[in-house]
């Protein structure tokens, strides 16, 4: 992969920021708490409805009485370093080359700093691959990732496509399940520093061989479950929200939300065969 030109941002599509007031006022959450989200490459890495994860976190924080600020950051923009939660989704191949170059050249240092400082980084599919150490394409070419996650990806013919059900491998969340849909050509292998996010019960996961799905290293998370996986797995949304807030708030309590609809959906997807 190589990228020639970056930038050329349209007038219509400049970096945006939006702020939302908590609709129901503080309710258990600390007075004046704000969640700061950074959505990386929203227009380039958004092929499969991945932005649903940002929507989910925004709404759930808002329903918990928090204020939310979301910065949308793209090619050529500086990475804001004061956010609690950084999100990067998957994109089409053409976009992914552009993003890989911008990420390595412009943002790798800042992203590593915020990760060291305890901010949560959540990545999906192509974004997950780029956070790893390397990506070997189908022709043997090597694309260096930014190496926050100790994982390596190898492209192989034949895409892994279909529904996934996986059992959580996160400490403290044993017994929980993750449901979602995967569609990827890359096979990802975990190094000793990274731990799997989950173990597949159905579907291929990281590489279709070792039964692992996703990766976790400190507060950095990667997964192949694309689209809006957080609304279908509200327990993981809350897990990430807690860890993201813990960076700037020593004590707080998340109110429990009415997740009956989300849980019905989750149950319907664990039941598929």
């Amino acid at each position, binding site marked *: 992969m190589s*990228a*020639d*030109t*970056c*930038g*050329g*941002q*349209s*007038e*219509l*599509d400049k970096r945006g920021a939006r702020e939302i007031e908590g609709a129901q006022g503080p309710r258990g959450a600390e007075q004046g708490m704000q969640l700061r989200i950074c959505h990386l490459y*929203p*227009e380039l890495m*958004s*092929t*499969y*409805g*991945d*932005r*649903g994860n940002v*929507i*989910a976190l925004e*709404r759930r924080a808002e329903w918990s009485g928090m204020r939310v600020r979301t910065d949308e950051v793209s*090619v050529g923009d500086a990475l804001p370093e004061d956010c609690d939660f950084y999100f990067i989704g998957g994109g*089409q*191949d*053409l*976009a992914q*080359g*552009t993003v890989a170059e911008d990420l390595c050249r412009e943002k790798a240092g800042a992203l590593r700093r915020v990760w060291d400082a305890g901010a949560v980084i959540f990545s999906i599919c192509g974004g997950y691959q780029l956070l790893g150490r390397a990506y070997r394409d189908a022709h043997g070419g090597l694309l260096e990732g930014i190496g926050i996650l100790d994982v390596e990806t190898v492209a192989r013919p034949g895409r892994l*496509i*279909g*529904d996934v059900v996986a059992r959580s491998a996160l400490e403290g969340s044993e017994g929980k399940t993750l449901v979602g*849909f995967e*569609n990827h050509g890359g096979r990802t292998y975990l190094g000793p520093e990274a731990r799997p996010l989950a173990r597949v019960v159905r579907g291929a996961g990281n590489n279709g061989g070792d039964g692992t799905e996703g990766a976790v290293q400190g507060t950095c998370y990667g997964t192949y479950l*694309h*689209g*809006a996986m957080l*609304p*279908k797995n509200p327990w993981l949304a809350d897990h990430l929200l807690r860890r993201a807030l813990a960076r700037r708030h020593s004590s707080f309590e998340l109110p429990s939300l009415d997740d009956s*609809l*989300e849980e*019905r*959906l989750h149950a*319907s997807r664990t039941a598929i065969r």
Partner: protein
Amino acid sequence: MSSSRREQPPVGEPKRRLGFGLGALVGAGRAAGALSRVLGRGAGSTIPGKLVVAVAPGALASLASRIPGGVLLVSGTNGKTTTTRMIVAAAGRAGLAPATNPAGANLLSGLATGLLAGPGWKADLGLLEVDEAVLPLAVPRLRPKALVLTNLFRDQLDRYGELDTLGEKWREALAAAERIPALAVNADDPLLATVGQAFPGTLNFGLRDARHDLGRLPHASDSQYCRTCRAHLDYRRVYLGHLGEYACTACGWRPPALDLWGEEVELMGARAVALTVRTEEESVRVEVDAPGLYSAYNVLAAAAGCRLLGIPLAALAGGLADMRSAFGRGGSMSVRGRHVFPLLAKNPTGFDEVMRTVLQEEQRLFLLICLNDRIADGRDVSWIWDVDFERLAGRCAGIVASGTRALDLAVRLKYAGLQADIVEVGSDIPAMLERAIDLVPDGGTLFAVVTYTALHEVRGALRAGHERSAALGPRA
């Protein structure tokens, strides 16, 4: 429901020849179609074609070569069926007898069925819609005389793959063609403009109406990058998804000038659209009983197809009027004194545009939204998170969520801030349709926004309900 879309496109053509003639095959194929209709297996739509394609792989080429006026293909993500029907209507007005495929039967077997059925054997020309993934296989087999490309939007990524890859496959298939067809492309789509530029004499069509500028690219827009230098394109106007007026400020690439364009587009709520279609030589005002800017784009694609075939635009205007009387206004149906409008929305841009259309209606909306994940819909429903359902906030009087993935849909609507508007969630489409109709006051309107296979279920249930209420008198 048509079963045609379940068929996987064949990879290669087996090298074998069978000894009996095409005439016998055609007879056998037609007999199989009739048998399948009698047995009630589907509408019999692609059985004859399946048989012919399976028994004699070269048959498609033979069938196409026998049509004196040649074959025109229509392909792209959205608007294939409607565009093809419009060209068929125009051809009828021009005194031609076209062979065409049944709606949605657009894989190889459906194409063969189209060339066999109706006036197929005696047709003047073939007018066929082709699945976008099948187009590279259809071009060498059918050797089309003309090809209309409508648009490329993200749709069923688990099946079609990525847009850039698909665009490249199209370009390769055309470049390798023994006879490169006369090409018409929607040049408001940057990817299609690029494909069109690779071939001399391409007819470029698009829209030119500043009043319908969205002002910004919606979230679900796809091909917004320059194919020459990969920079973000600079949009002067955005009409629909990534369709609009644009140029690359980084490398100076710009799309070709339009040869045929639409102006003075008048959107008449969810019922109809009128526009003026212009070329350097001709100009005609047309009205079509289908809503939204996407219908205006369908008219332009049909007009471009007519130009390639030498059919005058006046015949298209007449053909569109014929379609109106044949299908009834906007395709609505009356059930127990309520109007029900089924509206197909099968991908993010389709959904966004259908919402833009129904939001033009003055009243607070009653909506039935159906999301199915059958193979013809795509098994992956993640794309609903790319739809801007948020814009329905404050405009709904009641929403019923249905389809095989009703729960996914309901969760999406909840996170769009519409939870208070959701009246019921259930997978049983006919039951939920009844429930939704019950919400609507007498004389009111229900918009049923549905995915591909759900459209068949809703239409079936509506027909049954319509017949029931007709049998019971005017107000059952």
